[in-house]
């Protein structure tokens, strides 16, 4: 049998086995929040968690990262490219929605003529240990975006939580290399695999939030101009929590940080957000999206209309972080409802005519 078993009490063994070869990232509790952090001691790893507050996207696409460093020699500039992009990474305990977000990010950063080396190299060198969700939250909706609480897309090794131990499935060659190093893993029995399948089914059936996104995309494509956007934007305070916690948001700003006196510095990129008025503000003062309504619309259109038209898939993985994060509770489910009402109204009008 290919499947193995990993006792939860053996996580430290796993960590110690691979920590020299990989930069090991795992869920860790920081000031009460779960986040994916570089682990230096196996005790830091949190095994009992729903999902991280900030998605594991930030391991591969951190909030702030150096593009290159430079120094001046007289009028000449010497550019020092990053060397750490070749480091091997291991991200432990990624939920299926977040793992799927890596697929989206990968395709986005590789799209077109220009390849985003900074992201893609890290992605190439990352091994992902995914973990199935036994208890999806009410705000979760991965099954509506083509995902599943036990989806293995973009994972190299996949874990099922069977109580005191994990069922370990090898998904890719990269995963095989990793599992090979853990010779002490015991073989799984048929019952363990069955149990995992039962959990997957149970999880799938427990979803309370479901959307028909095909319809949403269709309605959005036809309704860039619609009074509903005013309604949607009404209570938004533009805080951008939704975009900052989104596993598929990729927008960034580029800034030079110059150490004037030492004639050196770095060019960095930091997360930016389409919810900020300054995001599109031009030097001339002209702003293509000066109003909140345009910015709210851009976020929704981007995920559910522009993304499908450019990449033939939704720009959302159904993690539900934006639903929980919105401080004024102007959350995605309500927004989608309002969008679908446009269609219902039209249908109603047709029926009356």
């Amino acid at each position, binding site marked *: 049998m290919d499947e193995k078993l990993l006792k939860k009490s053996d996580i430290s063994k796993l960590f110690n086995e691979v920590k020299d070869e990989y930069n090991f990232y795992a869920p860790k509790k*920081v*000031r*009460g*929040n*779960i*986040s994916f952090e570089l682990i230096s001691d196996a005790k830091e790893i*949190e095994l*009992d*968690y*729903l999902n991280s*507050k*900030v998605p594991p996207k930030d391991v591969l696409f951190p*909030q*702030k990262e150096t593009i290159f460093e430079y120094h001046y020699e007289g009028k000449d500039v010497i550019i020092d490219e990053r060397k750490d992009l070749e480091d091997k990474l291991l991200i432990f305990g990624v939920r299926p929605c977040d793992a799927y977000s890596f697929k989206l990010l990968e395709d986005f950063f590789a799209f077109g003529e220009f390849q985003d080396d900074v992201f893609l190299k890290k992605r190439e060198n990352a091994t992902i240990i995914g973990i199935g969700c036994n*208890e999806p*939250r*009410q*705000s979760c909706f991965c099954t509506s975006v083509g995902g599943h609480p036990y989806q293995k897309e973009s994972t190299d090794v996949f874990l099922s939580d069977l109580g005191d131990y994990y069922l370990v499935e090898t998904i890719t060659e990269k995963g095989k290399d990793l599992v090979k190093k853990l010779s002490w893993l015991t073989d799984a029995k048929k019952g363990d695999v069955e149990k995992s399948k039962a959990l997957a089914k149970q999880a799938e059936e427990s979803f309370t939030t479901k959307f028909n996104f095909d319809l949403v995309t269709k309605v959005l494509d036809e309704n860039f101009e619609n009074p509903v956007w*005013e309604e949607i934007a*009404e*209570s938004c*305070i*533009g*805080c*951008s*929590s939704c975009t*900052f*916690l989104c596993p598929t948001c990729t927008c960034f*700003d580029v*800034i030079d*940080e110059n150490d004037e006196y030492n004639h050196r510095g770095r060019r*960095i990129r*930091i*997360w930016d*957000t389409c919810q*900020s008025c*300054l995001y599109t503000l031009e030097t001339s003062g002209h702003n293509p999206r000066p109003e909140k*309504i345009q910015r709210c619309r851009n976020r929704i259109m981007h995920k559910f209309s522009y993304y499908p038209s450019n990449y033939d898939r939704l720009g959302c993985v159904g993690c539900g972080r934006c*639903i*929980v*994060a919105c*401080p*004024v*509770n*102007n*959350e995605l*489910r*309500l927004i989608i409802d309002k969008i679908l009402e446009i269609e219902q109204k039209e249908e109603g009008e047709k029926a009356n005519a």
Partner: protein
Amino acid sequence: MVMIVGLEEENKEIESNMRELARGLLKEKKVDVIIGYKKGTLPMMSQPIIIDKEEDVDKLLWNNTCYVNLAKYLVPRVAKFVDPEKGNLKVGVVAKGCVGRALIHLASENRINLDEITIIGIPCNGVINRQRIEMEIGEKEILEVTASGNNIVVKGKNFEKEFPFDEYMNELCKQCKIRSPPLVSKFPDLHVGACEEYASIVDEFDDIAEFEAKSPEEKWAYIQDALSVCTRCYACREACPMCYCNLCFVDQNKPIWFGKTTDMPDIIVYHLIRAMHMAGRCVACGACSLVCPMGIDLNFINRKLEKIVKQRFDFTSGLDPDTLPPMTDFKMEDAEEFMLEED
């Protein structure tokens, strides 16, 4: 003395009074629109709602999850508060004490014309410290939150836990001395409902005593630790009714005052400079901390500044629209030992 039977009954009473006031205002056309709260879609959430019809009055809600400072929606006015032909509409604002204070303070800064507003006063009984409850519940999903007696009952799959409201109230609410919106006698038409006259506010600032007792090194470590998880999303700024600048100092690029990263120095500069801008202006609504996606508590910084302003200038923000906030005013008797050497 009124016997308080329990939180739920208390909220119901506040709610039904509020609805009657709102109904009356709309019926008599004393206001064009009303902004208040309605039921949220998550267990510990409410939503801002704007209504202009009598029949929608029953959507208005009062409970201990009405966090948002609704004054935010008046500066600048949201589209529904402006009529294309008539101009600014008369807005009724469901106001707990801190919302009332925010409105009055914004009037002192000429951001709001009080003639265009009616304050629907709520005798606020405090909001839940949502972050604290979430942290204590930990990695379990909260499915239902109700009130029972004076306890908040939190339920989820396979668990149920009670939190005494007195203890699990937002820290600022515990200290709050201005639960109902302040009366401004110069504007008799400004108020309906539970508004109160506050002569002079006595505040012991007990909540920051622990912070103040720390040595400078400990304080510094505490501040750094508290702010370390900040993602610089600026939700705190966007939720703050006093943050209405067209271009915030963090966004200026001529010159760029400081870095935009999440490196510790940049985080610190952002929060401390923002705090300075709040001195004598913060109305202690706690919106900044309540909206923080990372659960950072900024209140200790704001309260410390509030205390300094109170001690130095005997000023409490949001009580009088005609008194200039101390940081925008100058008086001969202002203490200025920070400007001049003592000896």
